[in-house]
């Protein structure tokens, strides 16, 4: 048997200039916030961006962005759900709503293949991917299926986060997946540890995102979220990354 979806993925992503996965080895460091914030900030800056939520059992990007989940419209595939001008979202939550989705490894792989094969992103400056924590099926599949894959790694200044994220960076290097930079999230002027860790691993320090008490009240309101200092900082970091040269 031959699975045709892999060839379909290359065609679906043909109009996308950059595919950037937001990763971390640790849960709760703000990957989804950084991915959603990056999407908002880049869209505000006039770029056309897609956001794919691949945290299948705990999809949350739509909650950050206030996108009402519904079955997608069709146009020779399925269309991502519009969020704000320039930003559209695809998520397993569009199909499962608020129901639990417990999948085993091969089922995760099938879901990723299917979403990538049938989602019509069209022409986009970037497709941002909100990843689940760790290096599981999602990361391994993306590295296999999307040759142009690049990553932004998110860490907090916490010692625990630093230790496990350093292992993630080593794994990404081993997998030859380019790391565009490490974002230090939820900082209170204490992002130096993340900077040093990035330097130790030979990857760029992408910037320090301040801890922002305004995030919680702005959840679900893209206008309010987009105006937060933390989101502006993510936008500056991503703008610099996208404006810079691609890592080899």
């Amino acid at each position, binding site marked *: *048997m*031959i*699975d*045709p*979806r*892999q*060839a*379909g*993925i*290359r*065609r*679906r992503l043909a109009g996308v200039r950059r595919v950037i996965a937001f990763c971390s080895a640790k849960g709760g460091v703000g990957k989804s916030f950084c991915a959603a914030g990056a999407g908002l900030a880049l869209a505000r800056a006039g770029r056309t961006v897609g956001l794919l939520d691949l945290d*299948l059992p705990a999809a949350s990007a739509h909650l950050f962005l206030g996108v009402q989940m519904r*079955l*997608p419209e*069709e*146009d*020779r*595939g*399925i269309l991502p759900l519009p969020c704000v001008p320039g930003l559209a979202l695809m998520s*397993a939550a569009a*199909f*499962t*709503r608020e*129901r*639990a*989705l*417990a*999948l*085993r490894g091969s*089922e*995760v792989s*099938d*879901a990723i293949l*299917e*979403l990538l*094969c*049938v989602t*019509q992103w069209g022409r986009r400056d970037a497709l941002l991917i909100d990843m689940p924590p760790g290096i599981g099926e999602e990361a391994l599949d993306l590295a296999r299926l999307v040759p142009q894959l690049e990553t932004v790694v998110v860490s907090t200044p916490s010692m625990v986060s630093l230790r496990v994220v350093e292992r993630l960076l080593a794994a990404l290097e081993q997998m030859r997946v380019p790391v565009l930079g490490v974002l230090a999230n939820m900082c209170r002027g204490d992002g130096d540890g993340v900077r040093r860790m990035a330097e130790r691993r030979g990857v760029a320090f992408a910037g320090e995102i301040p801890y922002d008490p305004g995030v919680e009240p702005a959840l679900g309101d893209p206008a309010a979220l987009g105006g937060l200092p933390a989101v502006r900082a993510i936008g500056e970091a991503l703008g610099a990354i996208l404006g810079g040269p691609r890592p080899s």
Partner: protein
Amino acid sequence: MIECMHEWALADAVIATAQKRFGGGERLSPGSVTVLVGELQAIDREILAFALDSLLAESALPAGIFRLATEPAAFLCRPCGRRWGLAEEAGLAAEEREAIHFLPESAHAFVRCPSCGSADFSVEKGRGVSIAEAGS
């Protein structure tokens, strides 16, 4: 409307794969490539066939090489070992069926083992679209 359906993305993937696998398809006879359509995904065979024919005409592959075959869906419950088919899932709502049509893995949000109620089941066969080796 038929031009918009999501079956086109799958047909496009089938054509791209066939081109890569069989080149110009010089050695392929009519109906020699079987496209298996899993019952779970409930692909509209008429639309898929139309899309395949239309996209074939734009490709280097010869016309009529595809033969569509439906593969019945079969579930296996991991905790209790119960096997069952889609006929026992007649209670699925239209929107749930549509969700499974787009993303078959969303079945795990809606389908439960008829014996023990577990969502921990595997789709043993009949999941989605695949290609059988030519001539097989």
